[in-house]
């Protein structure tokens, strides 16, 4: 209880950059900070996290925080499941309540085609030991009694993929908790420090240029998600990534109304109700590429119209705020993770609209890669090489709208 009232800095402010670090992590989002956090557990503490804004200013602080592991491919399901399991322990491990609410996740099916895709996911998941199953309209009604589950609508609910351990978390808490943990281990967190160039000589990155001077690094990690292809360009490593925006919005808070996460891919909407009582809602990624994070009216119109098909009573709920964040989309909707052709330069990219749930496992596996020089099995399917070898891991059917 006393701890509650101690005013302790979460992370130190660091006046200057050192000349050299064993590991330089570019990007102070959830992945960059998680990597610093897990590096500490492996005893690697000479680490700098360089962030051009404040920590969590990118997608980490803008996402709608859905955590789940009911992916379509065995590779994906295994990987995300490991992450959710880490998340389950993370709050306790960091002594920071991440407000992780495993309230259950429902992906609605409005067509028999959707049911078919879900049946496959449920079975792949089951074989991996992931709690995920197909349920009928009656069970959907029980889980979401305020939702309209009738047959006389444009998009009747024919069933759903139910994933009980899925849920939502407090994104900022994840960022702050990881930052505190990394800082406590000695890693330096440098906000407002933008990387402007990478010097490459042959197979190695020799220096990192920043708005606060040039530094040397043993290993450089690119954890910049939406900006990852720009950073890779600096190293002359082409990434098959396009950057788009994804939009989201919240309503004014109301009393408890919805206890599960609802996703409808066909209607391009998903929503949950936060512990504060706000509905957090989002849609699918915008098809055009851009780095400009301003939203569109179309998004608000389509999203509200579709949400009201499921919850007509939300017609009186008021939209309070909307925003957009960057998403780095890979061709197969799976991440690009690990080594590149440059020996001491690794990436975490291709997170599209679903990377927040992966933060702990990304941090853990990248840290292992740095420490051992070997790619952990869990992320072997996600190397950049797969695009040269044509070994894609397609999550299109499971990741397009349900982040």
């Amino acid at each position, binding site marked *: 209880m006393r701890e509650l*009232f101690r005013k302790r*800095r*979460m992370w130190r*402010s660091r006046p200057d950059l050192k000349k050299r670090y064993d590991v330089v992590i570019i990007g102070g989002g959830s992945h960059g900070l998680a990597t610093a956090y897990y590096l500490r557990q492996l005893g690697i503490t000479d680490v700098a996290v360089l962030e051009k804004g404040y920590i*969590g*200013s990118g997608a980490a*602080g803008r996402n709608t925080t859905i955590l789940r592991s009911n992916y379509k491919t*065995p590779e994906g399901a295994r990987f995300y499941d490991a992450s959710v399991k880490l998340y389950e322990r993370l709050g306790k491990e960091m*002594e*920071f*309540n991440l407000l992780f609410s495993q309230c259950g996740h429902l992906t609605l099916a*409005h*067509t*028999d085609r959707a*049911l*078919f895709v*879900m*049946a*496959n996911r*449920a*079975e*792949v998941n*089951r*074989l*991996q030991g992931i709690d995920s199953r197909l349920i009928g309209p009656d069970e959907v009604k029980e889980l979401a009694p*305020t939702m309209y589950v009738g047959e006389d609508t444009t*998009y009747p609910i024919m069933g759903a993929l139910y994933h009980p351990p899925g849920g939502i978390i*407090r994104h*900022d808490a994840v960022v702050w908790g990881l930052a505190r943990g990394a800082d406590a281990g000695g890693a330096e967190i440098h*906000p407002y420090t933008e990387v402007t160039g990478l010097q490459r000589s042959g197979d190695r990155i020799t220096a990192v240029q920043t708005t606060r001077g040039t530094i040397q690094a043993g290993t450089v990690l690119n954890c910049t998600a939406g900006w990852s292809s720009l950073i890779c360009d600096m190293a002359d490593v082409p990434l098959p990534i396009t950057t788009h925006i994804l939009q989201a919005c919240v309503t*004014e*808070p*109301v*009393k*408890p*109304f919805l206890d599960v996460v609802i996703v409808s891919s066909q209607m391009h909407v998903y929503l949950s109700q936060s512990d*504060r*009582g706000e509905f957090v809602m989002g849609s699918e990624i915008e098809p055009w590429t851009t780095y400009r994070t*301003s*939203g*569109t009216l179309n998004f*608000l*119109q389509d999203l509200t*119209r579709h949400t009201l*098909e499921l919850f007509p*009573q*939300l*017609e*009186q*709920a*008021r*939209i*309070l*705020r*909307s*925003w957009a964040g960057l998403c780095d989309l890979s061709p197969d909707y799976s991440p690009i993770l690990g080594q590149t052709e440059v020996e001491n330069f690794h990436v975490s990219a291709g997170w599209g609209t679903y990377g927040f749930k992966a933060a702990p496992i990304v941090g853990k596996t990248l840290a292992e890669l740095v420490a051992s020089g070997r790619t952990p099995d869990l992320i072997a399917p996600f190397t950049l090489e797969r695009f040269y070898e*044509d070994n*894609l891991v397609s999550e*299109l*059917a499971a990741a397009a709208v349900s982040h």
Partner: protein
Amino acid sequence: MSRLAQQPGERIDRSQPVSFTFDGKPAAGFAGDTIVSALYAGGRRVFSRSFKYHRPRGELCGCGQCANSLFQIEGAPGIRGCSEPIREGLRVVHQNAWPSLDFDVMRATDRVGGPFTPVGFYYKTFIRPRRLWPVYEKVLRSAAGLGRLPRRQDEREWETEYRRRRCDVLVIGGGAAGLAAATRAAELGADVVLCDEDAVLGGLLGIEGGHERVRELEGRARDAGVEILSGAPALGFFDGLVPVWQGSTLHQVRADQHVVATGAIQQPLVFADNDLPGVMLSGGARRLAAAYAVKPGERAVVATVDDRGLDDALALSAVGLDVVVADLRPDAGGGELAGRIRAAGITLLTGHTVVRAQGRDRVERAVVAKVDARGRALGDGSTHDCDLIAVSGGSAGALSLLLQAGGRAIYRPEIAGFAVTELPAGLHAAGAAAGHDRAEAVEVSGAIAGAEAAAALGRSPNGVADARERLAQLPAAAPVATPPAQASDGGRRGKAFVDLDEDVTVKDIKRATLEGYDSLELSKRYTTVTMGPSQGRFSQLPAARVLAAETGLDLGTVGLTTARPPWSTVPMGVLAGRPLEAAKRSAVHRRHEELGATVRWAGDWRRAYDYGDPVGESVAVQAAAGIIDVSTLGKLLVRGPDAGELLDRLYPNRMSNLAPDRIRYGVTTSEAGRITDDGTVCRIDDETFYVTTTSAGVAGVEQSFTWWLETWGLNAHITDLTQGVAAMNLAGPQARGVLTGLTDLDCSAEAFKYLDARHAEIAGVPCMLLRIGFVGELGYEIHCPSVNAEHVWDAIVRAGSKVGLRPFGLEPQRVLRLQKLHVIVGQDTDSEMTPYGAGMDWIVKLDKQQDFIGRWALEHTAAHEPSVRLVGFTTPGGELPTEGAVVLGTDGAPEGQVTSARRSPRLGQVIGLATVPAALAGDGAQIWISDAGRRIAATVTTKPFYDPEGEVLRS
């Protein structure tokens, strides 16, 4: 009910009493009253309970901007009580208090919880044991939230509409500046729309005694033809598109020029217990009196840092309040207003401010003291009995829309706030939003903005330079004192709020800063300051001041948080417009309904799945004949000298060598060589091809074809005929006989061969006939103009009835095609399937000269064994696996899946298609299917189950 004598320009109509209820008890007011003005007149002072501590809250702004008087009306939460008009019979209830607004048990969180719930409380507690968190969470959840939504509602009840409006100039804000701008632009010939969130135009001028002038300005604007939308907030700026919400209508206004005259928002002051009911913005108190003839109190202490507060004090005094003024400025601005205050005999304490409010659940006293630069009281100060503390903490320009539109905010110490610079072209700011605060300057700046907007449209206004000159000559506004981050008497009791919506105190922000949340964005996220329903209107600047004081940064560096739409919170129903989903129906859809078809969605289409007897229907097709409506197929006409070349580059197989009147099957792939669609290509003549696509795929195919056509610059064009042309498939052993009776065409096997196309009249209608057979029988796909489709359908059904022809739906079609192992793209293929994986090696012509879409990837794929292959299977045990069930690899891991499975009535066995590991893709291989726990053995086959050599098809 007590009202002041008639006020000049009051909004109420005393001849029209209105009765409504509040929390079930009768309440009354007049037409023109808001909920708050009516209840206030009736003596109510507490309007809500705060979000976290459930402290009683009174009115703050009086104009629909604050979150202090949010009510619930029927199913609608969050109604702004200080702007929502009362109507006869309205049932208003409070939010977030139990059992009643005046006695709320949750107030305990304030009394005992206050010190025990420091900022960030949740993050630091309930961490272990982890399994108890869901229990705590439930408790937290039920304490959160303000209003309530109905648990059940079957459909939308509120009818809303979109309206699109294109105009030359959109003026946002209908105060003096906006009205002047709109009038000027309209008089110069521009088509002007003006919107204002208030139900009554005039902005501040109307409240501050200028209602006559407002009437004049409004009259001129109307005469000049300005379209005026009142009670209509502009919600945001979306690349020039501005949604304006008015009642049940969402106007989507697109203008060439925008004038933003959104005024400024009076700011509160921060001192101990500055949230007690009775602490109000001075402008809000004045508005109650001026617009609604409600006396806001008897004795007021007015605390101000600017002239506006002084002006408001005079107005309050004029309606009979006993007023004491505490002006933070050492000379009370040194202007004419200070003189008038003194002349009116009002006590004026200069260099003073309120350091504490006192009272039990409402203001009873104010402690006023001289303070140092950091806001600390010098000496004990004086205590004043009062029931109103009216504050004016300076003004914050309503800049959100300007910032959303690309302007940049900079801090200007002389106005103790932010202003906007670097406005993009086409955007003009006027009035208080542009930093003007004297009535005359406000109006002149509006006229200039209007003229500039018109000039940008090519009109030639004159006198603009003169007006600018005049504006520059006008006396500058009196200086504003920068309020301290917190005024304090040094006492520890009481809470000093920075954000009333979220119950965030100065202490919270300070504490957060110490913990490392030392930028406004981090502080916002940690303390939730500015995140409530009033969107930071009253808390952003005060929070920035605390942060600046704590970090030693200047306010310009602390900055503002990003301006995000919507500027006014807006019900989802308004944004959603009409509940409208486009459904496509084929030209013969009526017939399906008459036949009692089971109609279901197939993409955007409504389609007949069956006519009640899928088994019987499929048997009929194989025994006699059947007809199925396939109008949903995409149909593209590709025409031009380069049409053949274009198709050769788009399809992996060759199309240019197709002879006229011949048909070829084709798949399209992505650049990665993945199957994207399939269909037939029929050559009509040298330069014309008729291409069909899948029902769901046509839009994507058309888009991609057109894109490549443009990129390659070939001479051809593409026309989508999907909706204009209907199609039906007549199939079965009797199909030829049925067709022959309806046409002059020679339909013999020799004259009209498999994969031939013919033009002919069927039942008098010119049709195109394609001899293809998706269902595996002798068949004709008949394409005709949609307008004649019912006639052709009827003729075929009538002619066929003699031989046992039956209409069949999608379900029997699926069984029939499965017997032939015909693939449905999107069902049997997923986003990763290549033609090789789908067993269509023959379709990829790598020896083709042209580069074609996907060539590079397919060359690579051809050299490697695909990881899975699509094959047919049967289950010897007769189990029917679920579509989607998993096919296991040799090591028992999931490798492939069942993509289609049916019980075939004709074959009397279960048949299907599945992706299986390449090693298991040979005829006769054994595979295991894992289906929701069941293990099903299956046998692979690569040959069609029915008519494997295609003799029937060609017959």
